[in-house]
């Protein structure tokens, strides 16, 4: 075993440029030790993904050296990286859903048979080591996201890796699933002496889980410190280079208005969807922001889809400005309802389109000559305007959305709705997986929209955001709305209790 003084992996001046103009990493030094969890943080576009891709062998660095176990090393493919002992668990877990757990874990093994006794024995050993049991013959496609994450961790362990890179492993997990991942990570680093590079946006889990922290900003490592010397404010400052007070200020400065006089713009009458949503009635007044607090699978996305007419099986009535809304997305958009969906890449954007073509998609008539011929100049102006208004980091309106980082892509999905006459904006987890700077921008934008008399319904798993931005909060659990609270009369603690149910209340951040 190596001494703690010698780093398992040492990066020296790692840089990466794409083409001639795009500099993703300027110069990053990083030391990763066995038996320690190293947290890697940074805003969107700071270079985290690039760094991880270099570590995992997806592409080589332009400059700098990598030392592995004290000797200079280089690898040019994920396979080589894996063989040397670096396993990477990517954010979007690349498992084969139609194969069993066992087959996925030993996918890279070079044996003749699909499953062997030795594999099963190895799998049992893995389960015992980690203290988590899975049915090895179950299809991965049938597992929950949390269980899939565990399969990915097993996969990394099965390859005998010394260092495990985890790219936002908890981003899409429910609370108890996160706990499982945390427990496993602690176990691996303390008991098995593995080095772990843990990438996350959640400051609380970085504080709770890691031993040391490196913060990237604009392609450089701007902070490197022991976690015990840090607190959330210090990390957040390092990430965005400023205090994150803006969001809290926005909440406290705001006067909690009385909406009794404001006209009702959206009215739900017993809106329901069989098996997905229990009947719900709701009035949204002009200028009001309603927050929906609920965990993954609580029916919160289903509610938004039912309002937007995207759920063909929905029943009940949706009235916009007193007029019934037909059950189709066309009718909803035409009448002035916009939806920012949960999965921005799968549901929100056309990846082959540039920023400008995505921005104008729901409101093409507005930039068209005679209502049917879009004028490229106007569209590109609109794209450039969106970039400026929302602070999107992109080379220009001609950038493809597939080349943007998460937060910037999210801003494009929101920008789509800012140029048509919408009365109601539905936002489904608009801040998931994006950095604090972009989060604050988006929440402030929501307040601004409300102050111009629009109605907003916003869904989030991060309840402090809802408290900062909403006027009223509905709590959803098991496909039904279980509580409605004015924002002044509730707290994050209460929301977590309500949304998580009594059984899951013990572990809260």
């Amino acid at each position, binding site marked *: 075993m190596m001494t703690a003084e010698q780093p398992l992996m040492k990066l020296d001046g790692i840089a990466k440029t794409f083409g001639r103009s795009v500099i993703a990493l300027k110069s990053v030094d990083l030391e990763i030790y066995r038996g320690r969890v190293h947290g890697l943080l940074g805003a969107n576009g700071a270079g985290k993904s690039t760094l991880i891709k270099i570590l995992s062998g997806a592409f080589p660095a332009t400059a700098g050296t990598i030392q592995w176990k004290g000797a200079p090393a280089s690898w040019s493919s994920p396979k080589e990286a894996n063989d040397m002992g670096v396993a990477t668990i990517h954010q979007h877990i690349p498992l084969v859903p139609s194969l069993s757990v066992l087959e996925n874990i030993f996918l890279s093994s070079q044996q003749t048979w699909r499953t062997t006794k030795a594999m099963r024995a190895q799998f049992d050993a893995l389960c015992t080591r980690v203290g988590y049991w899975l049915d090895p013959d179950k299809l991965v496609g049938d597992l929950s996201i949390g269980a899939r994450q565990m399969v990915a961790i097993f996969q990394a362990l099965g390859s005998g890796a010394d260092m495990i890179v985890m790219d936002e492993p908890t981003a899409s997990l429910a609370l108890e699933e996160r706990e499982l991942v945390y427990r496993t990570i602690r176990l691996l680093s303390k008991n098995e002496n593995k080095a772990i590079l843990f990438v996350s946006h959640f400051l609380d889990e970085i504080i709770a889980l890691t031993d040391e922290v490196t913060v990237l900003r604009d392609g450089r490592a701007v902070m490197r410190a022991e976690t015990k010397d840090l607190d959330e404010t210090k990390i957040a400052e390092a990430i965005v280079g400023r205090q994150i007070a803006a969001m809290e200020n926005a909440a406290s400065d705001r006067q909690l208005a009385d909406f009794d006089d404001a006209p009702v713009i959206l009215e739900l009458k017993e809106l329901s969807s069989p098996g997905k949503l229990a009947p719900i009635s709701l009035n949204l007044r002009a200028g009001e922001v309603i927050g929906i607090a609920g965990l993954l699978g609580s029916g919160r996305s289903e509610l938004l889809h039912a309002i937007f007419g995207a759920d063909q099986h929905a029943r009940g009535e949706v009235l916009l400005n007193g007029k019934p809304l037909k059950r189709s997305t*066309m009718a909803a*958009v035409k009448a002035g309802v916009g939806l920012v969906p949960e999965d921005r890449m799968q*549901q*929100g954007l056309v990846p*082959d389109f540039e920023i400008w073509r995505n921005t104008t998609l729901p409101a093409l008539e507005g930039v068209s000559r005679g209502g049917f011929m879009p004028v490229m100049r106007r569209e590109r102006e609109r794209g*450039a305007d969106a970039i*400026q208004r929302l*602070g999107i980091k992109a080379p220009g309106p001609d950038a493809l959305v597939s080349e943007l980082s998460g937060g910037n892509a999210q801003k494009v999905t929101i920008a789509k709705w800012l140029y048509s006459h919408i009365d109601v904006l539905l936002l489904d987890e608009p801040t998931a997986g994006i950095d604090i700077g972009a989060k604050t921008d988006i929440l402030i934008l929501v307040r601004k929209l409300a102050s*111009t008399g629009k109605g907003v319904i916003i869904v989030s798993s991060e309840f402090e955001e809802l408290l900062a931005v909403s006027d009223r909060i509905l709590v959803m659990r098991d496909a039904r709305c279980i509580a409605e609270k004015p924002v002044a009369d509730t707290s994050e603690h209460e929301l977590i209790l309500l949304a998580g149910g009594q059984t899951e209340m013990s572990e809260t951040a």
Partner: protein
Amino acid sequence: MNERDIKMASTSNTAADPSIGTSDASGQGVSAEKLERKPDWRAAFGLREMGVFYALLLLVIVLSFATAYMGRSNYLSVLNVTNVMYQASLTSFMAIAMTVVLITGNFDLSVASVAAFSAAVFVGSANSMGLIPAGCLAMGAAIVAGLINGSIVQFVGINAFIVTLGTLTAIRGLVLIYTDGASLTIQSPEMSAALRAFESQRVDAGIVLAVIAVALLICSAVHYTRAKRLEPVNLGMMLGGAALLAFTWSAGFEVPLKMPVIYLAAFTLLVWFVLRFTTVGRRIYAVGGNPEAARLSGINVTFYKLAAFVFCSATAGFAGILFASRLRSMNPTGLQGYELTVIAAAILGGTSLFGGAGSVIKTLGGALLLYSLTNGFNILNLGANYQGLIEGVVVVAAAAIYTVGGRSGRKS
């Protein structure tokens, strides 16, 4: 409009913030020049964009030299060039409609069967009811086939490949039932004459082509003076205009085109215009590029996908009528196997099988490439045996170039 009012608080918010502030400042400072679209020469003239035209050009040059060297009739003669266009016209019609279906993310294997069915209905009913009603009936039959394809794919949710593989066989079966396995023929001489005028007549388009060439040159010049620099657009128009002018001039301003070529030119222009410049076109690309995002942006995805099937079958129906008019009879096995040539032409033109990308002009280039190959084999007397092999290699090579070119062309 409220959009002025919500002009992002982030301007005030980010003023205090160095990291976002810099990006914002640069965003404001550069936005005017950012808005200016820099011509991307490498993309515009790269293999991915222009590959099919380079291949066509290369083939034409090789064939011209080969024919000259071997002392055969000149490949580039007006007669031969217009002949290639004529031979390619039926496939091109279907390939262009196929491109639209492929862009919406679907697939239609049944085009040739639909065309054959339309041809059979046309010939079979023309004798009793006259040409125009028969034509309408044939088009109606084709449109119904498209509705059936599209409805099964969109409403039942079966993969388009499987559905149209089924209708490919089933509609060919209908042709056999309708014709009872025998050839149908137009009987009356007047009808034959009318069909000849509709399909086989040659029209001298020399002057028109020269005018188009000059118009292209003028457009190019106007664009150049406005943009104040050479851009791919004006250079392309200039080269195109010059080539067209040179060709018509070398032909002595006499270019006799057969009618289907003229129909095809009008059809291609129309489809290109709709795809390139209208909201309908944008939505077709969006529907193929990401159906869910399109649906959640308020686009009627089902309608556009279904309409693409109907459009494709209707075009196949028209191609069938042209085919029947050419022969003035219909053999029940006519047009068999054409669907593969049609799809090959679309793929040669760089149309994505996954939807969201494709261009009808490039598809036209693909069809011309395939028929130039066939024509070259005939002129050089190389024997039809090698033809299939070479065509297959060309299609796979083209797909390889698009895939590899696409990978290197895009910054990851």
